[in-house]
């Protein structure tokens, strides 16, 4: 299929014809992949390696590039997952030569890579490093980029396969995407691919998310747009699927008959740091709940997908997001807070309003807790409590499924006084793993029952150096495997859940203060107390 169009146009220039031929021989189409005599599904030792391609990174000077993306590329190379000829092009407003960018990459790799530094791997990557200086509105710079990519195709045999990683603030998306369209870089010739990777935030409400999507989808088809929610690249998050759908132990009790409620928490101990410009006006709910926590909710609550391909997985997640219901009284069952000065982990820290660059009357929520219901047969009546916040007691992300109390206890009331509810906790970070809490007899002559924990530490039973989320996600982009990336429909559904809450907050008072280092405002505790429940002490 990829090789039939070359001769059709008589007027085609000789150069273009040769280029087309070069592309055809390097095409990594599915048919070629399937007919590869050296691959065999039973040969599990051979890793999935991406085909020859170029990764164009916009925003290489940013923190994310330095800490995560560049080291992740090296780690992929070190694990033997980068194709021969893989090339990396940096684009930024810096007066750099290729060597300067290589040096920046080298330093980032040395400092942040998770796998040991090896000279030969660095050599392989270093040969493919290029830099294109310029600004986003500068047509000339993009023309240079376009020519550079053509040249790389020739010198490195990358076959016209480009992934564009937009690690830049969303306000630049329209310019960059428009430039990619103008220079023809967005349109893939037959037999090659073009992909675009965008980072959260995917808008700040439904409308802006749709506008943002209109920009990318005008130029790239949805199947070529990869939205990175790095939480979905985490091993523990993927393990939720394994835990639920590879075992028989949990699924029978994974419903309203046994589950009392679910708590999903993402707590950070840090403040907003240098992110004031981005954070103010966005807040915890938009920053974290809309994407990470609702995705976690979807994975925990969804029905079993028919398979693990992108379509089936996304369909099930969408079904859950569609059935999410908001509480009737938004005033009582959605809580927001804002940290005030206090002590966090032995350090005296300032309040949100005193942070640099934050207006003194800011209404931004640095803590948000909401109660949701999933209105379907499995979950009706089971509340899902979601909370996220900054400057809380410590850094922890977890999903806790708390079970009903035993319907009848054949023990006396005194014996089970300190027995809590059974719980299954999926620890996403740090110390990834799973904890099961259940009652056990206290040694002694009396029959006294109290809570104990059974613990599975992911790092203990498996690799110490499990791949970093970005490693996995970058590889998936280069291979073109989308299950771990949220679809635009999921993004929009999440905003539909959050928008009414944000609207309510915007018109009803201001966030309640909570001292830094504590676990959020008292109203959040009161919200659970009304339901006869408490937040897990983390």
């Amino acid at each position: 299929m990829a090789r039939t169009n070359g001769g059709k146009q008589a007027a085609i220039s000789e150069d273009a014809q040769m280029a087309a031929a070069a592309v055809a021989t390097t095409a990594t189409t599915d048919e070629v992949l399937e007919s590869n005599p050296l691959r065999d599904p039973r040969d599990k030792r051979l890793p999935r390696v991406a085909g020859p391609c170029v990764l164009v990174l916009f925003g290489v000077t940013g923190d994310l590039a330095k800490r995560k993306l560049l080291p992740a590329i090296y780690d992929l190379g070190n694990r033997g997952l980068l194709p021969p000829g893989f090339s990396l092009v940096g684009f930024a407003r810096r007066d750099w030569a290729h060597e300067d960018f290589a040096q920046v990459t080298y330093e980032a790799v040395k400092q942040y890579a998770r796998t040991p530094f090896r000279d030969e791997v660095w050599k392989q990557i270093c040969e493919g490093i290029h830099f294109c200086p310029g600004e986003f509105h500068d047509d000339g710079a993009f023309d240079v980029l376009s020519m550079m990519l053509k040249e790389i195709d020739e010198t490195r045999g990358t076959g016209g396969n480009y992934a564009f990683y937009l690690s830049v603030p969303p306000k630049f998306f329209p310019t960059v995407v428009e430039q990619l369209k103008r220079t023809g870089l967005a349109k893939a010739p037959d037999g090659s691919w073009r992909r675009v990777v965008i980072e959260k935030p995917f808008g700040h409400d439904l409308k802006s998310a749709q506008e943002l999507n209109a920009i990318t989808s005008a130029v790239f088809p949805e199947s070529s747009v990869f939205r990175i929610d790095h939480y979905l690249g985490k091993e523990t998050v993927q393990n939720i699927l394994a835990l639920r759908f590879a075992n028989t132990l949990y699924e029978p009790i994974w419903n309203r008959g046994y589950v009392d409620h679910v708590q999903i928490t993402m707590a950070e101990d840090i403040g907003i740091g240098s992110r004031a410009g981005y954070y103010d006006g966005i807040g915890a709910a938009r920053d974290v709940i809309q994407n990470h926590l609702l995705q976690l909710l979807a994975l925990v609550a969804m029905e079993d997908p028919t398979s693990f391909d992108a379509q089936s997985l996304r369909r099930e997640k969408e079904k859950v997001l569609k059935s999410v219901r908001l509480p009737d009284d938004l005033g009582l069952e959605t809580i927001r807070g804002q940290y005030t000065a206090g002590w966090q982990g032995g350090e005296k820290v300032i309040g949100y309003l005193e942070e640099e660059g934050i207006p003194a009357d800011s209404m931004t929520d640095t803590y948000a807790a909401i109660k949701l219901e999933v209105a379907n047969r499995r979950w009706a009546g089971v509340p899902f409590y979601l909370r996220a916040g900054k400057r809380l007691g410590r850094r922890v992300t977890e999903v806790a499924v708390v079970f009903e109390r035993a319907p009848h206890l054949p023990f006396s009331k005194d014996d089970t006084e300190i027995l809590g509810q059974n719980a299954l906790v999926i620890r996403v970070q740090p110390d990834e793993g799973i904890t099961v809490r259940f009652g056990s007899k206290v040694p002694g002559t009396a029959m006294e029952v109290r809570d104990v924990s059974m613990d599975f530490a992911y790092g203990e039973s498996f690799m110490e150096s499990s791949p970093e989320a970005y490693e996995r996600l970058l590889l998936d982009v280069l291979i073109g495997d989308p299950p771990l990336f949220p679809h635009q429909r999921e993004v929009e559904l999440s905003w539909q859940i959050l928008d009414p809450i944000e609207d309510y907050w915007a018109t009803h008072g201001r966030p309640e203060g909570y001292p830094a280092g504590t676990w959020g405002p008292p109203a959040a505790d009161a919200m659970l107390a009304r339901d006869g429940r408490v937040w897990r002490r983390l």
Partner: protein
Amino acid sequence: MTSFNLTDTQASKISSTLTKLRHQMGAPAVGMVLTLVVVCDEAGQYDSVRAATEAAREHPSRILVVIGRDPKEPNRLDAELRVGESSPGEVVLLRLYGELTKHAESVISPLLLTDTPVVVWWPGGAPDVPAGDKVGKLASRRITDAHASRDSVKAIVGRCGGYVPGDTDLAWTRLTTWRSLLAAAFDQNVGRVKKGLVEASPGHASATLLASWLSDRLDAPIEVGESSGPGLTAVRLTLASGGDLTLTRSDARLATLSRPGQPDRRVALARRPTSELLAEELRRLDPDEIYAATLRHLAGGTK
């Protein structure tokens, strides 16, 4: 690290001492995923234990090292227990004397972790039929290393006869990086391969295996040639469409991939330490059907 020596002991004592040591360390829970039995002699013990403990960092295991000592001495079992030594698992060195050297399985079987896989690794000499061996019988995965024998090619050819699903050889593991690069090269349309040549230092079992695998998959004659090494140095495939697809490596670290009509590309292809090979083996505990097919092809080809 906590270390403990038991002389003239039994398996039950070793087992209870292990439990005691774990409690003393304050980590009584068992997060170990498998038992790795290493069968070796005193001379090879140090390197093997080191490789096994490093591999155990990825796969926390109970490592039982069986060291056969003088069979003429009176029967005796000595044990050296190491817990918490830079790895989450446990290491037990078992030294067998006298007649006991022939009955190692009686010591090992009470020490296996319950209901988890057992892997046996012979870093040095291995039985002709690993699955028929008394210790090998306890395991679901049996790892040999043809390169440890004097004539490694003969050793690997010999494996064909005694193959039972679950067998594997480090000579095959060493090839994974080569095979994965070659497979990546074939992800682009290459067309038919007419013939090929694998070059390596003389008497290299991995080269023999690689040639057999390529010949089996590509349905073309692949020869093994000699070079000055180190290890594998080149794969040259002659394409039906003209030209060669070659992967060459002369410094044991960086390889060059060339193919007709395309620029040469350099790619990292380093020789890997034993610990990494072992870690790869422990990652998949199901029978390696491709290895089996390659051995079968090898047996067919050499008859």
